[in-house]
C-alpha cells in the first residue's frame, strides 16, 4: 500500500479532532482547575498536530510510507478463522471446536491433515485441562 502514512495520518488526525470535540462536552471543574475534558483535549490536540505532520509527510514522500502484505491469502484466512472461532465462543464443545479450528488453520498453513488434527486435539485437551479443570475457568 503506497499511502500508508497518509491514511494513518488522516485517521489519527480525525481521532485527535474527535477527542478535542468530545472533551469539550465533559463537565468542567470549579475554580479554573482542569476538569474531565482537560486531558482528552490536550491529548487530542497533540495527536491532531502530530498526525497532520505524518499526513503531510505521507503526501510528500509517498514511497517511504508504503507497505505490502505477502501471503495475503493466509493472513486473511487466519483472520477469518479467528473471527469464526470468536463468534462461536460459548456455544459449548470447547475441545472439539478448538481442535477443529486449529486443525483447519494448520492445514491451510501447509501442514498435513492427520498430524495437524492430532496436534490440534492434544493442544485443545491440554488447554481445557489447564484452564477449565485446573483453574476453574468456565470454557464450555
Amino acid at each position, binding site marked *: 500500500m503506497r499511502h*500508508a502514512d497518509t491514511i494513518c495520518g488522516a485517521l489519527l488526525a480525525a481521532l485527535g479532532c474527535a477527542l478535542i470535540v468530545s472533551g469539550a462536552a465533559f463537565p468542567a*471543574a470549579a475554580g479554573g482547575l482542569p476538569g474531565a475534558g482537560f486531558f482528552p483535549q490536550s491529548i487530542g490536540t497533540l495527536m491532531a498536530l502530530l498526525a497532520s505532520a*505524518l499526513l503531510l509527510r505521507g503526501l510528500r514522500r509517498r514511497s517511504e510510507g508504503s507497505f505490502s502484505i505477502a*501471503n495475503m491469502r493466509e493472513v486473511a484466512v487466519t483472520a477469518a478463522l479467528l473471527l469464526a472461532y*470468536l463468534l462461536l465462543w460459548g456455544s459449548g464443545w470447547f475441545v472439539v471446536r478448538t481442535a477443529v479450528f486449529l486443525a483447519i488453520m494448520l492445514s491451510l498453513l501447509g*501442514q498435513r491433515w492427520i498430524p495437524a488434527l492430532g496436534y490440534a486435539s492434544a493442544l485443545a485437551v491440554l488447554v481445557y485441562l489447564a*484452564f477449565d479443570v485446573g483453574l476453574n475457568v468456565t*470454557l464450555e
Partner: protein
Amino acid sequence: MAEILAGLSAVLAWQVLGFLAIGVCLGAVFGALPGLTATMGVALLTPLTFWVSPEQGLAMLLGIYCGTIPSGGIPAILINVPGTPASIAASWDGYALTRKGQAGLALGINALASTTGQLTSIAFLAFLAFPIASFALRFGPAEYFGLTLLGVSLMAGVSGGHVLKGVLAGTLGLALALVGLDPMTAYPRYTFGMSEFLDGISFVPVMIGLFGLGEVLVQISDRQSAQVSAAAAIGRVLPRIADAKRMARATFSGAAVGTMVGAIPAAGGDIGAVIAWEQARRTSSDGDSFGKGSLSGLAASCSACNAAIGGGMTTMLTLGIPGDAVSAILIGALLIHGIQPGPLLFANNQAFVFSIVFLMIFASLLIMVIGILGAKPLAKVLSIPAPWLWAGIIVFGTVGAYALNNAVTDVWAMYAAGVAGFLFRKTQIPLGPLVLGLILGPLMESNLRRALILSRGDWSAMLTRPILLVFLAATLLSLLWPLVRARRGRAKRSQDTVPDA
C-alpha cells in the same frame, strides 16, 4: 536483616520454587525459538498467575524473563538467527564460533556470561534500589508527571528512527488510557454506555493481542520459519580456565554497561549488548578478532544483554516506570496482584523487594545449569514447525485473555489489538510507546491534575520545581536528539557525496 530473611523464607517455599522452575524452563524454550520473545512469553502467561499468590505468580514471570534472554543466544549461536532482539550481538561472534566447530563452547560461554551479567545487575538492584527509592520519595505529583512524560518520550525517541510515529504511538496509548472513569471526578469517559469499559481497557488482553497474535500474523505474512536445523555437533561446553580468565574483563565490563543501559527507560538489552561489544572491541588487545569468533566479544554481549534485566527491574521497582515492554507487563501483573511498584513499595513492603532479588538470583543460577546441561535438547527445539507454534500462541492467548474476567469482550479486545499490532508493525509504527502510553496515561493525568490542584491552577508554580525541570529538559532532549542526529547524518552523507573539485 529481618526483612531480608522474610524475603528469603517467602521464596524458599516449594510452590514458589516450583513456579520459578516452570517459568525458567518455559523461558528457555521461548528464547530458543526465533520469533518468540520474552515480551510475548510474559504476556501470554500473565493470566495463569491470577490464581496464585503474588510470590508464586511473580516467580513464574521472572523465571520466564530471566530464562528467555540467555536462551535467546542459542539460535543466535547455532543458526545465526537471534532468538530475542537482545541476542543480536551474540550472533556476531557466536555463529562464527559455530562455523569453526566450537558451538558447544559458544553455548557454554553464553550460559556463564549470561548468569554473570544477571547476578551483577541483581547486586546493583539489591544495593542501589533502596537509595534510589529513598530519593524518589521526595517526588510529588508534579515530579511524577514529569517522570511519566519522560518515560513515554524516551520510548518514542528511540523508536528505530521513526520519532514522529513513536510519539504518535505514545499519544495513541495515552488516548486509549482515557477510556473509563475520570481518575479525579469518576465521570465516565468513552465508555459508550458499556459497563465493561468503566474500569478502562483491560491491559493484559491488549498486550497479548499486540505482542502475541500480532506477531503471529506478521510471521504468517512474512513466512519467517523456525524450521531450521541446528548444528549437529555441539562439542565441549565449558571453557578452559585460561579462556575464562581472558574473558573475565569483557564479561564484567559488559555486565556494568548492560546494567547502566538497562536502567535507562526504553534502552534495553539489545542496545546494551551492542554498546558493550563495541566497548570490549575497542579496549581489547585482539580487537581484530571481534566478529570472527572472539570469546571475549561473545562474553561481553551475552553478559550485557542479561545485565539489562536487573538494571530495568531497578528502574521499574524504584520509580514505577517500565523500562521496556516486558517490565511494562510485569507492572501490569503486579498491579493485578495489588502491588504498586514505586518508592512506597520499598518503604512499606521491603520483604517483597528482597523476595524479587532472591527469585532473580535463583532464576539466574537455574538458567545457567539449564544452559550448560540442556544445550543439546534446547537446540532440538529449533526444529518445531512454525505453524504449530502459531497455533499454540493463538489458543493460549485467546483462553488467557478470556480467563482474565471470564469475559468474551476481553477476547474481542485481544483480537482487535492483534490486528492493530499487525498493521502497526507493517506501517512501522512502534508498539512500545503505545503500551507505555496505555500504562502510564492514568498516572500521568492524575498526577498532573493533582499538581495543578496543589498549585491552585498556577502552571508557573510547577515550573519552580527543579526535579520537574530536569525531567522536562530530559524529555525535550530525548525527543530532539534523534532529529539532530538524523540531520547530522544527512549532512555528513551529502558532504561525502560531493565530488572532489
